[in-house]
């Protein structure tokens, strides 16, 4: 231990500061993990301790309808934003001239993705509800949410295309392919794993959206599962009926709801939402690893 005594004072202080900070950071990281475990545990515990089978019912006593609405709404939103988003991404990566056009596009995308969702909700309310003279409906909600996912998907597509080696496009052009043939048969298939992963992540992010939906998709839901007429206002698949989602159900049950089960339903909704978000985030990771491995294998 003679050696350590020989260390001059400032150096010793530096070393002990280093150890102290490292210890502090370990503790902080542990606390963060504990916080996450605590959150998830609390939600799971509150949901499961009050659990009754009827809470899962596809009726006003359960959250089944809200669950269906959430999935259906995200599906509709993606149906709108995937083609437009991928198109805009291709435009950014391949067509937009460097400089002005790209700069304007980028500012526009940044604006859209930083828009507070309550502001977007108001825009959707004005344009899709008031100006079309309609009641709250799922389609208006889907259109509004698709504005949220549009910049995400466009950015993902652009990044994925830009990450491809330039030789892909050159090889294709060298064989006499047109620009569109190159994009549709070489670049998009090669960028596909990254794009699909990004879309799943985007979907995971909009499951929990609430503020953009409260004035568009509406805060009530009434589904008659026996209905086979899609134009009926109670048919499950009619996009022009109002449709409360899981997140709006949580929002509504904070005080407005007089249902004694409201809090139990909200806890269960929170748990289901968490499960959806986790599944999509983990699924996107697994899929991207799988597809990347497959791609690498093909290249060998």
């Amino acid at each position, binding site marked *: 231990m003679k050696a350590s005594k020989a260390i001059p004072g400032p150096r010793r202080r530096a070393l002990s500061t280093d150890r102290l900070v490292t210890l502090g950071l370990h503790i902080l990281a542990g606390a963060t993990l504990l916080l996450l475990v605590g959150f998830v545990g609390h939600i799971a515990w509150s949901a499961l301790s009050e659990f009754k089978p009827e809470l899962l019912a596809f009726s006003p006593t359960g959250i089944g309808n809200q669950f269906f609405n959430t999935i259906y709404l995200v599906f509709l939103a993606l149906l709108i934003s995937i083609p437009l988003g991928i198109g805009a991404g291709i435009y950014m990566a391949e067509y937009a001239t460097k400089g002005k056009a790209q700069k304007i596009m980028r500012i526009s995308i940044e604006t859209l993705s930083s828009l507070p969702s*309550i502001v977007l909700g108001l825009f959707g309310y004005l344009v899709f509800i*008031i100006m079309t003279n309609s009641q709250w409906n799922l389609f208006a909600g889907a259109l509004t949410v698709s504005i949220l996912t549009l910049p995400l998907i466009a950015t993902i597509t652009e990044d994925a295309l830009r990450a491809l080696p330039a030789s892909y496009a050159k090889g294709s052009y060298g064989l006499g392919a047109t620009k569109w043939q190159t994009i549709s048969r070489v670049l998009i298939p090669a960028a596909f794993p990254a794009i699909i992963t990004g879309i799943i992540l985007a979907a*995971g992010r909009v499951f929990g959206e609430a503020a953009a939906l*409260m004035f568009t998709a509406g805060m009530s839901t009434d589904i008659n599962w026996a209905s086979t007429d899609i134009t009926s206002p109670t048919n499950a698949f009619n996009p022009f009926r109002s449709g409360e989602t899981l997140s709006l159900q949580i929002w509504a049950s904070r005080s407005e709801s007089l249902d004694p089960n409201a809090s139990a339903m909200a806890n269960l909704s929170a748990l289901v939402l968490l499960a959806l978000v986790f599944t999509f985030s983990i699924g996107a990771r697994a899929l991207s690893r799988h597809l990347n491995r497959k791609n690498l294998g093909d290249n060998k």
Partner: protein
Amino acid sequence: MNIESTLRADRIWRNVIRGAGLFLLIITAAIGIFLLYRGTGTFTIYGHSLSEFLFSTQWQPADTLAGGGHVGAGIYIVGSLITCALALLMATPVSIALAIYMAEITPSVGRRFWQPVIEIFVGIPSIIYGWLGLTILVPFLQKYTTADSGFSVLAASIVLAIMIFPTITSVTMNAINSVPKTYRQGAYGLGATRWEVIYKIVLPVAKHGILAGVVLGLARAFGEALAVAMVIGKMKAFPKSLLDPTVNLTSAIAADMGGTMEGSEYNMALWTMALFLFVISLLFILLIRYITSKGGNLSESK
């Protein structure tokens, strides 16, 4: 397929893709224009002044087309500012420390374990943070502090802080990771400890990226509506302490928009709040662009 139809397909698709790009621009422009058109109604139709909206604390807009009420949003603006500032104050040190931990102390575990953990935090919908705030934090504050109801500035700030810390952490981590390895090696070669390397080399080099992350977090906090609305208490008064309830811009829009008459003074005043939020979020974008453009030399010298 013959050449002519191939070329025609190429032309058609070029226009389709351009259309998609254009569509994105149109949407953005439409949002801006509609907000501007509706949001300025308070000033053009009902004749209020901008300084009344920003600085007056008298908020009594009339829910009629005749108008004649007061549209001072001062309390709401202050509510938004206080909660966001407090949230930032709480979240920033923790976020930066965590990012340092993940990127510098446990780099390999950081990538494989901590990054997904932070991503899960980012992915948790804000409404769930609000719900947790309502069911854990508010009762806790009511029980263990002098707060009357638990609905308070403090509750809102904590919910916001928890909501934005993963955002700041992940941007900061990227900024730290993009500091060239040679910088660290140089410092270690001179005998610096790990903390000295972090504190004196890595953080100063990554500061623009970190700042951009902080602004991004602030932007998220400023625009968050429902999570805050669930715990802030919606009391139309300046808070005298952190444990008092108050109100902010987003929760006012969320709570009151549905009940107003289309085109009334009240309705328009809420739109003005939305326009204000939009303008602030644009300012945040510009700020982030400015900060990252100043730090741009770093990525080039990599």
